[in-house]
């Protein structure tokens, strides 16, 4: 059996677009995911408590992605995740001086980013043919 190579994937326009879109999406999601993680120590309050709430928002995000993907498609689920990302980010920029609500805003950001990251992984099987799934995952 001939092993599929990247050149075969790039021959199909739809797959090429999906590959470029997914690559950008994964890069941006990874950037935001690790930005928040590295930024954690600069947030006000106890770092252990903050980590706990980060983990809690991750848990909620993972559960809600499963729920979302059962009821809608990948693109709509991603837009919902981006809306949460965006609301959290803008609210943080506007209200970062109000220390009491900062942890909540960060958790909203974290939940949105985790949802995006998770949908990025789950969406591979819907965006690429079976032959290329392992290759695309890298």
């Amino acid at each position, binding site marked *: *059996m*001939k092993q*599929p190579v990247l050149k*075969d*994937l790039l*021959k*199909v326009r*739809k*797959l090429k*677009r*999906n590959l*470029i*879109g*997914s690559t*950008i*999406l994964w890069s*941006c*999601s990874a*950037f*935001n995911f690790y*930005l*928040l993680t590295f*930024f954690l120590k*600069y947030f006000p309050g106890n770092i252990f408590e903050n980590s706990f709430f980060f983990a809690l928002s991750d848990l909620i995000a993972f559960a809600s992605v499963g729920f979302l993907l059962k009821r809608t*498609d*990948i*693109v709509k689920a*991603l*837009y919902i995740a*981006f809306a949460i*990302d*965006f609301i959290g*980010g*803008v609210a*943080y*920029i506007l209200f*970062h*001086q109000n220390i009491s609500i900062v942890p909540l805003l960060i958790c909203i*950001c974290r939940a949105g980013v985790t949802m*995006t990251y998770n949908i990025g992984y789950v*969406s591979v099987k*819907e*965006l*690429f*043919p*079976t*032959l290329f799934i392992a290759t695309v995952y890298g």
Partner: protein
Amino acid sequence: MAPIVAEMAYPMPFLFYLGAVVISVGATMMLEELGDEDRDKPDLSKKQEQISESLIDNRNN
């Protein structure tokens, strides 16, 4: 002056964060879920046949 700069610098990474979100929205617009007919693309079976035939030819020669 310094405290003001420090205070303003604090939410700065979130501008990068929002930028990444906006880029991600653009990237999501490119995505298109595959239908059942696209799942078998690209069709490698023809290529496989050609390779098999050429291998058989080579062996016969």
